[in-house]
């Protein structure tokens, strides 16, 4: 059971970053960015390129990957979403599906369809109190905690964080207070892209890199964000941890390949009963 909890928390930690990225853009722009999965894939493959082909150490390559996807997310917003800003969330959702397809196929075009892996040394797992902890799990733990701390500090203690929360809270009053929405939206996309890219690197470390890796994680990402509260970014992190644990514990009762059903069942139930999530603020009107 202890090992299941460790594994579940690892899965939850991996999901926490893209779930946070999704909730971040949703809270400010009120649209669910379906392309979040392709940002995960793009981040992983740019990092792989910097790590394997350029020979950079993984941490530096991850920085290249995060910066590239951050810039790409800002550019995609400028080119694709900006003109649709006043349209409904559904229009933007469809636009993001198009972006998702385009990015995934771009990755296939340059990297092919074969699975790949980062150039990292293989390490023995550590043992703590009878629990097996892989080197990758430790890296995931430290990276996610560091990223979440940075986002939390930005949210709580900076002008940018206050501006993000102000726009999420009351966009018309934010405009009256002189907050320039365009700049804040660019910052949101930058952060969202970087977080998704880091998640891609962690998924690549945990398993392998494939062009559809982001697609495979799309349902758990949405479930985690909805579970926590898609309009409340830090609550989405809690949702990710709960989902990771639920998926892992479900393997006690279900064959492992049914884990996805757990995510789907949780999401369907929440959307019917408590669409603002377990820990989020009530923002949905029927």
């Amino acid at each position: 059971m202890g090992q299941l909890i460790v594994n579940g928390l690892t899965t939850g930690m991996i999901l926490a970053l893209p779930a946070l990225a999704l909730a971040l853009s949703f809270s400010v722009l009120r649209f669910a960015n379906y392309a979040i999965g392709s940002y995960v894939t793009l981040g992983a493959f740019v990092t792989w390129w910097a790590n394997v082909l350029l020979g950079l150490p993984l941490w530096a390559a991850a920085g290249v990957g995060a910066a590239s996807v951050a810039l790409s997310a800002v550019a995609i917003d400028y080119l694709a979403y900006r003109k649709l800003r006043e349209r409904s969330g559904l229009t933007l959702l469809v636009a993001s599906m198009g972006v998702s397809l385009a990015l995934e196929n771009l990755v296939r075009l340059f990297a092919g369809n074969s699975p790949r892996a980062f150039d990292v040394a293989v390490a023995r797992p550590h043992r703590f109190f009878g629990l097996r902890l892989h080197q990758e799990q430790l890296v995931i733990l430290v990276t996610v905690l560091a990223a979440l701390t940075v986002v939390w500090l930005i949210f709580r203690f900076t002008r940018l964080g206050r501006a993000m929360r102000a726009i999420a809270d009351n966009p018309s009053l934010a405009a009256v207070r002189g907050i320039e929405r365009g700049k804040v939206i660019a910052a949101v996309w930058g952060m969202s892209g970087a977080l998704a890219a880091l998640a891609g690197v962690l998924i690549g470390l945990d398993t392998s890199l494939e062009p559809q890796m982001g697609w495979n994680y799309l349902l758990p990402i949405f479930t985690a964000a909805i579970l926590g509260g898609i309009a409340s970014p830090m609550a989405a992190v809690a949702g990710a941890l709960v989902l990771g644990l639920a998926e892992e514990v479900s393997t006690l009762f279900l064959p492992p390949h049914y884990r996805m059903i757990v995510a789907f069942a949780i999401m369907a139930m929440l959307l019917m009963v408590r669409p603002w999530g377990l820990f989020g603020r009530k923002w949905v009107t029927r």
Partner: protein
Amino acid sequence: MTIAAQSLVAEGLVAGYNGVPVLHGVSFTARAGEILTVVGPNGSGKSTLMKTVLGLIRPLAGRIRLDGHDITALSPAARVNAGLGYVPQEANVFPNMTVLENLRLGLDFIRRPGAKPFAERLQEILELFPEIRPKLAVRAGVLSGGQRQMVAMASALMADPTVLALDEPSAGLSPRNAELLFGVISRIAASGVTLFLIEQNTRLGLDASDEGLVLVSGEVRLTGKASAILADPEVRRLYLGGK
């Protein structure tokens, strides 16, 4: 009277929607440190006048001056930076942020030359609004309507505006809270800020004001000292039930 003593001046404003005027040549002058209240029946153009002053609607004709500077062509954000504060009627605080964060946001993104540092301005505002000092760490969304209105005004005043525009400040408040609120509005005016109000409660609004303006069908029906307007038999008959 010098131009500088005239904080907010509108001259012959014609404004409306899709080229159809709602206001037909509205003019007024709000002097420094005074309260000017606009009253009128529903559909008289009060909200359109407020939107035009704030820059949310571009006038078809006429000019608006703030502290002697023509602000007619400025964007809403540029008007805020020029010294025009605004408190909307509804949704006038960030409900999920603390009162202190609301006050910070009143100053965070304002670019006015000579703006005071946050800590200094906060102390001045807390002296003007001692009621909100114990609430600084409280989420604005859990405050009562009156307290929320006070936080909204305090937040708008953080930027040290010359003119504070209030859109129906007494809306949704109990009579007692509305009276308390107008006491605070008088305090703000005494601190040197000019107040430009749109108000549904004619008696309460004019009672607390120096100047009044009665707007009917987009035209100025009556303007002058608020006490004189309150005493006007037609105003009493139409808006105060003949009392």
